[in-house]
């Protein structure tokens, strides 16, 4: 049974149909990379997966349970789904360590020492233990994103969603963030990653999905996707991004 399964998912904003009949599944421990042109609905799909957007139709099955039914506990579900945004969205009025420990303390009701101890381990892991006491404003974009990853991990999620985590970064800062994500993948974290970093997709992904105009156009292994794409739109997109 897949950890997460999406069936015939649709999302409309008013009259604009952004997701049209999306089907996909993510196995536990799998790294799924979503690629596709801007505006194709990648962010919307990812946001549907933790219900920041409510789908207009279809099903999302998590651990065998449809998360779109009324009785489903959205908050508990979101605690097990970590999300990293393009713009980090750190809480600017809290220090780095407070950003990381805030949710464990207030949601999981962890005591402060335990939360801080765990938080420091996570900051260590993303290479920012020395920045624990500073405010996010003093950090570079790459550092902020790594704090955001630590913050999400502090909730001990079962799956991590990344929406273009490196798109807002200066090129020289991208590597540090991707390395942290690579490490996570190696540890067996289930991940869904929207990215334009084709190198990352090739090396780390178990499966790559190409989306265009609200459809999943192609869903295959990275080797298949990058050496032998089937669909013309996939070919056209890949030739454009790979030859840049």
């Amino acid at each position, binding site marked *: 049974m897949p950890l997460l399964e999406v069936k015939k998912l649709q999302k409309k904003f008013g009259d604009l149909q952004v997701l049209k009949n999306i089907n996909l599944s993510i196995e536990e421990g799998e790294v799924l990379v979503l690629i596709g042109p801007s505006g194709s609905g990648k962010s919307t799909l990812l946001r549907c997966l*933790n219900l*920041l957007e409510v789908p207009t139709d279809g099903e999302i099955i998590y651990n065998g349970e449809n998360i779109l039914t009324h009785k489903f506990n959205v*908050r*508990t579900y*979101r*605690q097990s*789904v*970590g*999300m990293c*945004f393009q*713009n980090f*969205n*750190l*809480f*600017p*009025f*809290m*220090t780095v360590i407070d950003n990381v420990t*805030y*949710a464990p303390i*207030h*949601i999981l009701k962890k005591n402060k020492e335990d939360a801080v101890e765990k938080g420091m381990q996570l900051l260590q892991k993303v290479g920012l233990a020395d920045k624990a006491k500073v*405010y*996010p*404003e003093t950090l570079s974009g790459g550092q902020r994103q790594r704090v*955001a990853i630590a*913050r*999400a991990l502090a*909730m001990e999620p079962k799956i991590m969603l990344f929406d273009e985590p490196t798109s807002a970064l200066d090129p020289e800062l991208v590597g540090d963030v991707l390395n942290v994500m690579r490490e996570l993948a190696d540890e067996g974290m289930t991940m869904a990653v929207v990215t334009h970093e084709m190198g990352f997709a090739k090396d780390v992904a178990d499966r790559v999905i190409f989306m265009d105009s609200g459809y999943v156009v192609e869903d295959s292994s990275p080797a298949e996707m990058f050496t032998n794409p089937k669909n013309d739109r996939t070919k056209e997109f890949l030739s454009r991004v790979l030859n840049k």
Partner: protein
Amino acid sequence: MKVLENLNFSKAIIELLPKLLGEALHIVVITTIVGFLFAIVFGFILALGRVSKKKALNHIIILFQEFIRGTPLLVQMVYIYYVMPLFIEIFASIIGISGFKVSMGSMTAGIIGLGINYGTYISEVIRSAIISIDKGQKEAALALGFSNAQAMFKIVIPQAFRNSVPVFGNYLVMMVKDTSLMAYITAQEFLMTTKAYTAQTFLTIESYTILAGVYLAICIPLAFAIRILERRLNRGRR
């Protein structure tokens, strides 16, 4: 210039200043503190009503705000002081309580008037501060597993409040000065006290100069203190 030769500041200072710094100061300070806290709480409630998704509530609050902004504070105070008690008495007699007398203290009326009036303006400050917080903040909180209300109260509103503090400070200084309007509803604040003193002594120039000086002596340090507080709060902001 006979008038200038007859100026007697020392007399006015010795006699008037203790009055101003006694009972009158007490009234001004209490009215401002209580009135301002009331204004913030009230403004906050209005702002929450305005950012809520309930259309009917939005409209009621907008109507109320227009009503407050379209009438002078002085008229509002006079209304609360003289007219409200009558309404309450009429209402009491309608529900069958006869001979019910209401007396509204001038300070109470002042506090209510200032609180409602300033709260209305402050609500707009808080509202725009709330909507100017990046949507990503709320989403990050939701994604971590906070409820909507928690995301609002723990993440969005603390930032909105912090951003509003400089404006709050300006309103606080304005409120100190607007307590002078309470002279019209018989409160023995600075203006009323000074007026009474001039009526007895005819030391008009001296008294009102002292009065102006007292306001300055309060408002300038207050504005300064607020600026320091603001700088403190600015630490750790993006």
